[in-house]
Protein backbone atom coordinates (compact mmCIF):
# COMPACT_ATOMS: atom_id res chain seq x y z
CA UNK A 1 0.00 0.00 0.00
CA UNK A 2 2.70 2.41 1.06
CA UNK A 3 4.76 1.77 -2.06
CA UNK A 4 1.73 2.40 -4.26
CA UNK A 5 1.06 5.68 -2.45
CA UNK A 6 4.67 6.71 -2.85
CA UNK A 7 4.78 5.97 -6.58
CA UNK A 8 5.30 9.08 -8.70
CA UNK A 9 2.49 7.93 -10.99
CA UNK A 10 0.06 7.91 -8.03
CA UNK A 11 1.06 11.47 -7.31
CA UNK A 12 0.52 12.57 -10.92
CA UNK A 13 -2.94 10.98 -10.83
CA UNK A 14 -3.70 12.80 -7.59
CA UNK A 15 -2.65 16.14 -9.08
CA UNK A 16 -4.80 15.59 -12.16
CA UNK A 17 -7.90 14.61 -10.15
CA UNK A 18 -9.33 18.18 -9.92
CA UNK A 19 -8.80 18.61 -13.67
CA UNK A 20 -10.54 15.32 -14.35
CA UNK A 21 -13.56 16.26 -12.21
CA UNK A 22 -13.78 19.73 -13.76
CA UNK A 23 -13.56 18.50 -17.35
CA UNK A 24 -16.08 15.76 -16.58
CA UNK A 25 -18.50 18.38 -15.21
CA UNK A 26 -18.02 20.47 -18.32
CA UNK A 27 -18.43 17.44 -20.62
CA UNK A 28 -21.68 16.52 -18.89
CA UNK A 29 -22.92 20.09 -19.25
CA UNK A 30 -22.97 20.83 -15.52
CA UNK A 31 -20.25 23.51 -15.82
CA UNK A 32 -20.20 26.31 -18.42
CA UNK A 33 -16.96 27.01 -20.30
CA UNK A 34 -17.04 30.42 -18.63
CA UNK A 35 -17.18 28.83 -15.20
CA UNK A 36 -14.20 26.58 -15.95
CA UNK A 37 -11.92 29.61 -16.00
CA UNK A 38 -11.76 30.42 -12.32
CA UNK A 39 -11.15 26.91 -10.91
CA UNK A 40 -8.51 25.98 -13.52
CA UNK A 41 -6.68 29.25 -12.92
CA UNK A 42 -6.88 28.88 -9.17
CA UNK A 43 -5.47 25.33 -9.26
CA UNK A 44 -2.64 26.49 -11.49
CA UNK A 45 -1.75 29.26 -9.04
CA UNK A 46 -2.01 26.94 -6.02
CA UNK A 47 0.32 24.35 -7.53
CA UNK A 48 2.78 27.05 -8.59
CA UNK A 49 2.74 28.45 -5.05
CA UNK A 50 3.39 25.02 -3.53
CA UNK A 51 6.29 24.38 -5.92
CA UNK A 52 7.77 27.77 -5.04
CA UNK A 53 7.20 27.48 -1.28
CA UNK A 54 9.22 24.27 -0.88
CA UNK A 55 12.74 25.66 -1.00
CA UNK A 56 12.01 28.57 1.40
CA UNK A 57 10.41 26.00 3.73
CA UNK A 58 13.49 23.78 3.59
CA UNK A 59 15.78 26.71 4.33
CA UNK A 60 13.59 27.83 7.25
CA UNK A 61 12.72 24.48 8.81
CA UNK A 62 15.69 22.38 7.74
CA UNK A 63 15.36 18.91 6.20
CA UNK A 64 12.18 17.18 7.33
CA UNK A 65 10.93 13.85 6.00
CA UNK A 66 7.61 15.32 4.83
CA UNK A 67 9.39 18.22 3.17
CA UNK A 68 11.80 15.85 1.41
CA UNK A 69 8.81 13.86 0.20
CA UNK A 70 7.33 17.02 -1.31
CA UNK A 71 10.64 18.30 -2.68
CA UNK A 72 11.05 14.99 -4.52
CA UNK A 73 7.77 15.86 -6.25
CA UNK A 74 8.46 19.53 -6.91
CA UNK A 75 8.75 18.98 -10.66
CA UNK A 76 5.30 17.39 -10.64
CA UNK A 77 3.85 20.44 -8.87
CA UNK A 78 5.47 22.78 -11.39
CA UNK A 79 4.44 20.82 -14.47
CA UNK A 80 0.92 20.39 -13.09
CA UNK A 81 0.73 24.18 -12.50
CA UNK A 82 1.49 24.56 -16.20
CA UNK A 83 -1.05 21.87 -17.10
CA UNK A 84 -3.80 23.74 -15.26
CA UNK A 85 -2.68 27.02 -16.85
CA UNK A 86 -2.96 25.33 -20.26
CA UNK A 87 -6.44 24.07 -19.39
CA UNK A 88 -7.31 27.60 -18.22
CA UNK A 89 -6.14 29.00 -21.57
CA UNK A 90 -8.00 26.32 -23.56
CA UNK A 91 -11.27 27.14 -21.80
CA UNK A 92 -10.64 30.85 -22.28
CA UNK A 93 -10.30 30.19 -26.02
CA UNK A 94 -13.42 27.98 -26.04
CA UNK A 95 -15.38 30.60 -24.09
CA UNK A 96 -14.28 33.46 -26.34
CA UNK A 97 -14.96 31.40 -29.43
CA UNK A 98 -13.40 33.70 -32.01
CA UNK A 99 -10.12 35.50 -32.65
CA UNK A 100 -11.66 38.97 -33.00
CA UNK A 101 -12.98 38.97 -29.43
CA UNK A 102 -9.64 37.68 -28.12
CA UNK A 103 -7.67 40.39 -29.95
CA UNK A 104 -10.15 43.06 -28.85
CA UNK A 105 -9.34 42.54 -25.17
CA UNK A 106 -5.74 41.33 -25.05
CA UNK A 107 -4.51 44.68 -23.76
CA UNK A 108 -6.90 44.74 -20.79
CA UNK A 109 -4.71 44.65 -17.63
CA UNK A 110 -6.36 41.44 -16.45
CA UNK A 111 -5.71 39.72 -19.78
CA UNK A 112 -2.20 40.58 -20.99
CA UNK A 113 -0.83 39.64 -17.58
CA UNK A 114 -2.36 36.19 -18.03
CA UNK A 115 -0.87 35.76 -21.50
CA UNK A 116 2.53 36.93 -20.21
CA UNK A 117 2.44 34.59 -17.21
CA UNK A 118 1.61 31.69 -19.53
CA UNK A 119 4.42 32.74 -21.90
CA UNK A 120 6.91 32.55 -19.03
CA UNK A 121 5.59 29.23 -17.73
CA UNK A 122 5.90 27.58 -21.13
CA UNK A 123 9.75 27.35 -21.26
CA UNK A 124 9.75 26.29 -17.60
CA UNK A 125 7.44 23.37 -18.30
CA UNK A 126 9.25 22.40 -21.51
CA UNK A 127 12.57 22.18 -19.67
CA UNK A 128 11.22 20.34 -16.63
CA UNK A 129 12.93 17.08 -17.55
CA UNK A 130 16.32 15.45 -16.89
CA UNK A 131 17.51 15.88 -20.46
CA UNK A 132 16.96 19.64 -20.41
CA UNK A 133 18.68 19.88 -17.03
CA UNK A 134 21.78 18.14 -18.42
CA UNK A 135 21.67 20.14 -21.63
CA UNK A 136 21.29 23.58 -20.02
CA UNK A 137 23.67 22.86 -17.10
CA UNK A 138 23.97 26.00 -14.92
CA UNK A 139 21.61 27.88 -17.24
CA UNK A 140 18.76 25.61 -16.17
CA UNK A 141 18.53 27.12 -12.72
CA UNK A 142 18.67 30.62 -14.15
CA UNK A 143 15.90 29.78 -16.59
CA UNK A 144 13.73 28.32 -13.83
CA UNK A 145 14.01 31.60 -11.92
CA UNK A 146 11.55 32.93 -14.50
CA UNK A 147 8.99 31.44 -12.13
CA UNK A 148 9.31 34.59 -9.96
CA UNK A 149 8.15 37.07 -12.64
CA UNK A 150 5.60 34.43 -13.74
CA UNK A 151 4.20 34.35 -10.19
CA UNK A 152 4.02 38.15 -10.00
CA UNK A 153 2.19 38.26 -13.36
CA UNK A 154 -0.17 35.52 -12.15
CA UNK A 155 -0.91 37.54 -9.01
CA UNK A 156 -1.61 40.69 -11.05
CA UNK A 157 -3.72 38.71 -13.55
CA UNK A 158 -5.83 37.36 -10.70
CA UNK A 159 -6.27 40.74 -8.98
CA UNK A 160 -7.05 42.65 -12.16
CA UNK A 161 -9.30 40.17 -13.89
CA UNK A 162 -11.51 40.03 -10.79
CA UNK A 163 -10.95 43.64 -9.79
CA UNK A 164 -10.55 42.42 -6.22
CA UNK A 165 -7.65 41.49 -3.97
CA UNK A 166 -9.07 38.95 -1.54
CA UNK A 167 -8.72 35.61 -3.36
CA UNK A 168 -5.38 36.43 -4.91
CA UNK A 169 -3.83 37.67 -1.68
CA UNK A 170 -5.06 34.71 0.39
CA UNK A 171 -3.01 32.53 -1.94
CA UNK A 172 0.05 34.67 -2.57
CA UNK A 173 0.67 36.37 0.81
CA UNK A 174 1.85 33.12 2.50
CA UNK A 175 4.31 32.54 -0.37
CA UNK A 176 5.48 36.15 -0.21
CA UNK A 177 6.08 35.84 3.54
CA UNK A 178 8.05 32.61 3.09
CA UNK A 179 10.27 34.09 0.38
CA UNK A 180 10.79 37.19 2.54
CA UNK A 181 11.60 35.09 5.60
CA UNK A 182 14.26 33.22 3.68
CA UNK A 183 15.88 36.51 2.69
CA UNK A 184 15.78 37.74 6.29
CA UNK A 185 17.15 34.51 7.63
CA UNK A 186 20.32 34.54 5.55
CA UNK A 187 22.11 37.44 7.28
CA UNK A 188 21.00 36.12 10.70
CA UNK A 189 22.54 32.70 10.17
CA UNK A 190 25.73 34.39 9.01
CA UNK A 191 25.77 36.30 12.31
CA UNK A 192 25.48 33.14 14.33
CA UNK A 193 29.23 32.57 14.91
CA UNK A 194 29.43 35.98 16.56
CA UNK A 195 26.82 35.11 19.17
CA UNK A 196 27.02 32.71 22.14
Amino acid at each position, binding site marked *: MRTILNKKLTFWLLLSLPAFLLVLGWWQGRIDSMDMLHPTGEWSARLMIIAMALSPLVSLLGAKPWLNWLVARRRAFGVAAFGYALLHLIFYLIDMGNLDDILAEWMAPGIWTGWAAFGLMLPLALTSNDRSMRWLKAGWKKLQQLVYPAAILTLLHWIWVHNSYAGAL*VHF*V*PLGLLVLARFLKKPLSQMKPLGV
Partner: protein
Amino acid sequence: MRKLIPLAIAAAAIAVLPSAPASATGAIKCKPTPQSSWKTQEVLKAKLVKEGWIVRKSKVDGGCYEVYGTTPEGDRVEAYFHPVTLEKLYVARRGEVLFRKQGY
Protein backbone atom coordinates in the same frame (compact mmCIF):
# COMPACT_ATOMS: atom_id res chain seq x y z
CA MET B 1 15.66 34.25 17.23
CA ARG B 2 16.21 31.91 14.29
CA LYS B 3 13.39 29.72 15.51
CA LEU B 4 11.15 32.72 16.07
CA ILE B 5 11.16 33.88 12.46
CA PRO B 6 9.39 30.85 10.93
CA LEU B 7 6.97 30.89 13.87
CA ALA B 8 6.19 34.56 13.33
CA ILE B 9 5.74 33.96 9.61
CA ALA B 10 3.43 31.01 10.24
CA ALA B 11 1.40 33.07 12.72
CA ALA B 12 1.17 35.95 10.25
CA ALA B 13 0.10 33.60 7.46
CA ILE B 14 -2.60 32.06 9.66
CA ALA B 15 -3.75 35.52 10.75
CA VAL B 16 -4.04 36.69 7.14
CA LEU B 17 -6.03 33.70 5.88
CA PRO B 18 -9.39 34.09 7.66
CA SER B 19 -9.35 37.89 7.45
CA ALA B 20 -10.24 37.71 3.76
CA PRO B 21 -13.99 37.73 3.15
CA ALA B 22 -15.26 34.25 2.40
CA SER B 23 -17.43 35.37 -0.49
CA ALA B 24 -16.03 38.34 -2.36
CA THR B 25 -18.67 38.24 -5.07
CA GLY B 26 -20.54 41.24 -6.36
CA ALA B 27 -18.68 44.13 -7.90
CA ILE B 28 -21.50 46.42 -6.77
CA LYS B 29 -24.59 46.20 -4.57
CA CYS B 30 -28.17 47.32 -5.12
CA LYS B 31 -30.24 48.53 -2.19
CA PRO B 32 -32.67 45.80 -1.16
CA THR B 33 -35.98 46.14 -3.01
CA PRO B 34 -39.01 43.84 -2.73
CA GLN B 35 -38.73 41.00 -5.26
CA SER B 36 -42.34 41.65 -6.26
CA SER B 37 -41.27 44.96 -7.80
CA TRP B 38 -38.49 43.33 -9.87
CA LYS B 39 -38.76 42.91 -13.60
CA THR B 40 -37.80 39.42 -14.73
CA GLN B 41 -34.39 38.50 -16.14
CA GLU B 42 -36.18 37.63 -19.39
CA VAL B 43 -37.40 41.22 -19.71
CA LEU B 44 -33.87 42.50 -19.12
CA LYS B 45 -32.41 40.05 -21.64
CA ALA B 46 -34.98 41.02 -24.28
CA LYS B 47 -34.24 44.70 -23.70
CA LEU B 48 -30.49 44.17 -24.01
CA VAL B 49 -30.77 42.01 -27.13
CA LYS B 50 -32.90 44.74 -28.70
CA GLU B 51 -30.12 47.23 -27.90
CA GLY B 52 -27.58 45.02 -29.67
CA TRP B 53 -26.15 43.02 -26.77
CA ILE B 54 -25.35 39.33 -26.86
CA VAL B 55 -26.41 37.91 -23.48
CA ARG B 56 -24.59 34.74 -22.48
CA LYS B 57 -25.58 34.35 -18.88
CA SER B 58 -27.50 36.26 -16.22
CA LYS B 59 -28.07 35.89 -12.49
CA VAL B 60 -28.86 37.82 -9.33
CA ASP B 61 -25.79 39.20 -7.56
CA GLY B 62 -25.65 41.72 -4.74
CA GLY B 63 -29.35 42.48 -5.18
CA CYS B 64 -28.76 43.48 -8.81
CA TYR B 65 -28.99 41.57 -12.07
CA GLU B 66 -25.58 40.53 -13.29
CA VAL B 67 -25.18 39.79 -16.99
CA TYR B 68 -22.26 38.24 -18.86
CA GLY B 69 -22.27 39.12 -22.51
CA THR B 70 -21.07 41.30 -25.35
CA THR B 71 -21.95 44.99 -25.60
CA PRO B 72 -23.21 46.56 -28.85
CA GLU B 73 -19.63 47.94 -29.14
CA GLY B 74 -18.28 44.39 -29.15
CA ASP B 75 -16.69 44.30 -25.67
CA ARG B 76 -16.91 41.05 -23.73
CA VAL B 77 -18.16 42.27 -20.35
CA GLU B 78 -19.74 41.63 -16.98
CA ALA B 79 -22.53 44.17 -16.39
CA TYR B 80 -24.91 45.02 -13.54
CA PHE B 81 -28.46 46.31 -13.92
CA HIS B 82 -31.02 47.51 -11.42
CA PRO B 83 -33.70 44.81 -11.05
CA VAL B 84 -36.56 47.32 -10.82
CA THR B 85 -35.58 50.02 -13.31
CA LEU B 86 -33.24 47.81 -15.44
CA GLU B 87 -30.92 50.79 -15.47
CA LYS B 88 -27.27 50.06 -16.36
CA LEU B 89 -25.16 50.45 -13.21
CA TYR B 90 -21.76 48.95 -13.89
CA VAL B 91 -19.85 47.49 -16.82
CA ALA B 92 -16.43 45.85 -16.56
CA ARG B 93 -14.28 44.10 -19.12
CA ARG B 94 -12.08 41.47 -17.44
CA GLY B 95 -12.07 43.49 -14.21
CA GLU B 96 -11.39 46.80 -15.99
CA VAL B 97 -14.27 49.13 -15.13
CA LEU B 98 -15.71 50.67 -18.32
CA PHE B 99 -18.77 52.26 -16.75
CA ARG B 100 -19.98 52.91 -13.25
CA LYS B 101 -23.12 54.87 -12.42
CA GLN B 102 -22.56 57.59 -9.83
CA GLY B 103 -23.37 56.39 -6.34
CA TYR B 104 -22.63 52.72 -7.11
